[in-house]
């Protein structure tokens, strides 16, 4: 599944996410920030997994499992939509 981050989502370097459409704010951990930034750069699911596995000490299976879960949350919080 590929996702597209909504255009108006604001993300700070420290992990603060704000959705002006709903007024909701979120905190996010470093791996989460990286994923958001990669989505913003219109990276595909495959590219994101590859990118993260190069930078972090985790295997691609673990990253893939966690990415599915993270995508579900981004959709649930209306921060992204299916591409």
């Amino acid at each position, binding site marked *: 599944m590929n996702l597209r981050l909504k255009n108006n989502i604001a993300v700070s370097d420290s*992990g603060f*996410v704000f959705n002006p459409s709903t007024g*909701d*704010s*979120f*905190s*996010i*951990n*470093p*791996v*989460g920030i990286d*994923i958001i930034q990669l989505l913003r750069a219109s990276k595909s699911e495959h590219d994101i997994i590859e990118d*993260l596995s*190069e*930078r*972090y*000490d*985790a295997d691609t299976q*673990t*990253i893939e*499992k*966690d*990415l599915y*879960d*993270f995508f*579900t*949350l*981004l959709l*649930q*919080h209306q*921060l992204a939509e299916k591409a």
Partner: protein
Amino acid sequence: MEKKRYERPVIASLNAGITNKFGTRNLNEPISHIDGASIKEITEQYGSPVFILSERKIRQLYRDAYRAFSTRYPKVQFAWSYKTNYLNAVCNVFHQEGSWAEVVSIFEYEKALANGVEGRHILFNGPEKTESDLRKAIEHESLIHIDHFDELYLLLEISESLKKRPRVAIRVNMDTGIYPMWDRFGFNYESGQAWDAINKIILTNKLDLVGLHCHIGTFMLSANAYAVAASKLADLALGIKLHHKQNIEYLDLGGGFASKNTLKGSFLPGADTIPSFDDYAEAICGTLLNAGFTRENLPMLILETGRALVDEAGFLASSVVANKRLSDGRKALVLDAGVNILFTSFWYEHKMTPVEPASHHTEASVVYGPLCMNIDVVRESVTLPPLRKNDLVLIHTVGAYNMTQWMQFIAMRPAVVMIDPEGKTHLLRRAEKTDDLNAMESMPEHLQSFSLA
């Protein structure tokens, strides 16, 4: 280039709430060692899940409790409640500290004898004592706490046939102002039933009535209820002195002191709300000292405290089996330890902490055990950092009742280890194997073979 430490991506909604002048406290600081012993190494050696007991903590809890009572009352004796945790090594830590044994079945009685406790230092409670149980207890000169009239009359018969005078106490139930009132054990105080039992014992002159016992409830959040109980037992003892010119050697206030666990539905953590040993001691000792006993007739105070002396010394190390996302968006964790070995999770919100270092990012999670049963919920909601499969979680304050009430259901019961005061680990009970259980079964001959299409 060295890779960065990976942590499962987490996004948590921020909700504005009432400001808290104390700030937020992180209750999930990782705990990697207990008394200097590495939890990870223990699981590598003994498997996961594994119960871990701290001998140092048991001794500290006992000494705190003993100090609270012995500094207020001249004759104090603790008796270790075997049913709370009857692993022999745990019992012997208490016996080394000076505790007698308090047992509620012949199985526990035999355990106490095998541990080396002299019969005269064993209190035999419980509603079911068979004739052979009672004969054994009389032979070993144990203190028999009579629960009902059927037992009393049986004891009278046995004492006649053995030509021995058993040393007995009666168990008394009473209204101490708490709900629910425990009235199923012993003889009732308010109705006069306790006096009927006392008169029967003394007038038949075949048993030595040496004590009075009560056990008013469990996880008692009111120290004052013990003051009421102590007052009613003292009233009976003084009445016996007045009417029968006989001294009662001891008053046994039973157990029921709360541990620092948090009961489900509590607003504040248990550690902040439960009475301290000093609170209980002040209520009981103050009442007895002012009851009207003369200095020479002051009865010994016996306490059968269990939970409060061992709960905090017990930990359960468990591994993450899986991460899940529920249909309503809630996070769920599956651990390899379930309610079959953590019976107390039905009424406590057990504290849980990660073992490995984790970031400050957290997520509320439901924690399930490994059983294929819907009831296998260890915590309905607990805040934990992102955990990966095989990461370790430490469940706190599990030393009481879990290692006795655990069930061999679906999964085997795990190993129990104790960390001694020097930080060395000792195996107290090995993990069960399938062969252990099959060894107790037998197969009828006509069921020994079958063929499947």
